[in-house]
């Protein structure tokens, strides 16, 4: 077997795949955060909890109602999205005229409540969610072994990210969204219902988090802290990519996952901090983020 820089290829590609999977979650989650921040000016700290909620809803659908993974992939984001719509209507909506800090505090509080309730009910040891039978097993690619489910996660996230990007950048609906992000007052004055658009956008961003949660359920165990662990890194990803940039958050998400994977191979001690180091460097050189538009 050949080696690259003294690293066996199985280890290298294995870590790259792990990086790509983490990157998939970073991408979907930071995409949702970017969309929400763009239109609502709210830093949605509940995003990690909503991702976790997606995994829990999938687990509940399976264990209480016998609804399988594929339906959960559709239903769980819908259910989590609806909770988002309710949260926006009842709570977040009241904060738009206030400083960013209030939205951050509210959503952070919501995250703690959602996590607390589920921790109280289900503990923190984690609940198993089996890989759907259609995606069990894997492929031997010669240079590495690719578990089918992991390949599916990368593929599904890519498709969802690209579809979201397409809708926002290339359709009439997306043009409304971009226009309202720039100047909601004028868009209202054209006769468009901006408050409803804001509610649905929050619901959609939250549904993306729920979707990522369902994808994650068979890989990581379903537990109330799974989102809290991830969301800090995702915020760093958003800062690096630039708040509010759609394509930026997708590309940054996947790339940082890969960089993290590579760091695990070449200098494992740095793997948990590499993203934060990159964040610090980006903040020094380009404070608006790599893809951020400076106002």
């Amino acid at each position, binding site marked *: 077997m050949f080696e690259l820089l003294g690293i066996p290829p199985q280890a290298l590609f294995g870590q790259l795949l792990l990086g790509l999977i983490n990157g998939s979650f970073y991408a979907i989650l930071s995409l949702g955060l970017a969309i929400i921040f763009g239109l609502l000016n709210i830093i949605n700290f509940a995003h990690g909890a909503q991702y976790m909620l997606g995994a829990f809803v999938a687990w509940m659908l399976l264990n209480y109602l016998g609804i399988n993974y594929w339906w959960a992939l559709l239903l769980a984001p819908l259910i989590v999205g609806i909770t988002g719509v309710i949260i926006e209507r009842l709570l977040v909506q009241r904060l738009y005229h206030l400083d960013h800090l209030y939205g951050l505090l509210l959503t952070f509080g919501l995250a703690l409540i959602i996590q607390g309730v589920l921790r109280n009910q289900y503990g923190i040891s984690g609940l198993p969610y089996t890989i759907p039978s259609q995606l069990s097993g894997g492929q031997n690619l010669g240079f590495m072994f690719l578990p089918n489910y992991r390949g599916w996660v990368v593929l599904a996230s890519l498709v969802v990210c690209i579809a979201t990007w397409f809708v926002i950048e290339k359709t009439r609906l997306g043009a409304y969204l971009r226009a309202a992000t*720039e100047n909601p*007052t004028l868009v209202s*004055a054209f006769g468009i219902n*901006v408050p409803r658009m804001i509610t649905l956008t929050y619901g959609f961003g939250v549904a993306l988090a729920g979707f990522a949660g369902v994808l994650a359920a068979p890989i990581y165990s379903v537990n109330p802290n799974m989102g809290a662990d991830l969301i800090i890194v995702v915020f760093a990803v958003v800062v690096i990519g630039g708040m509010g940039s759609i394509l930026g958050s997708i590309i940054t998400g996947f790339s940082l996952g890969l960089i993290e994977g590579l760091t695990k191979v070449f200098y494992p001690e740095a793997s948990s901090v590499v993203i934060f180091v990159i964040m610090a460097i980006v903040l020094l050189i380009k404070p608006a983020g790599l893809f951020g538009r400076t106002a």
Partner: protein
Amino acid sequence: MAEAARAITAQAGAEDALLTVSNLEAWYGESHVLHGINFDVRPGEVVTLLGRNGAGKTTTLKSVMGILPKRKGSIVFQGKELMHAPSRHVAKEGIAYCPEERGIFASLSVEENLMLPPQVKPGGMSVEQIFTLFPNLKERLHSQGTKLSGGEQQMLAIGRILRTGAKLLLLDEPTEGLAPVIIQQIGRTIAMLKEQGFTIVLVEQNFRFASTVADRHYVVEQGKVIDMIPNAELEANIGKLHAYLGV
């Protein structure tokens, strides 16, 4: 001046008016900006609001459009009271607004900017008609909206509201900062829109331009309408107008 003001008040509320604004007051936060604006606009008329900087002309348009949240008084359009309608409902009644800063969206292409305002009434202009009016737009369709020149951005800002079927257009200083040749083009456009039956309220600093397109002029000072001068009597009142505008 008091007599003039009374005459205006009496006239506001004329039976055949398309838009009647009476005793309109408005606030920006705590600061009281409009102190009782009265004017009316008849169907097919081009009416200007003239006045110095900060007199309240733009605020009047924004108030009619429902953009300012803190208002009182009455705004009647086609017999319907709009004082408590949010701006998206005002738009749906058939009033369209072209803001002073033009409001071209940077994240949208020229085409997306043009197609953005939804149709609110039947009978709006077709895209082809808008291109006939502003041929420049057709050539720059795929450019970023804010990459256009100032004049082209103004054409885009006017063009996009002609599609919607709105019959009353509120234009806030469409000639501001533009070259004379572009101002002439905008003047011809306004004359053409009037011919087609549009009703226009025009906010202007430039009363020479206003006199070439308008039927009547309302003079706004310190948040009040203090005089109304028909365009035909403009020459006779030129001294008075100079005093009002401080030119």
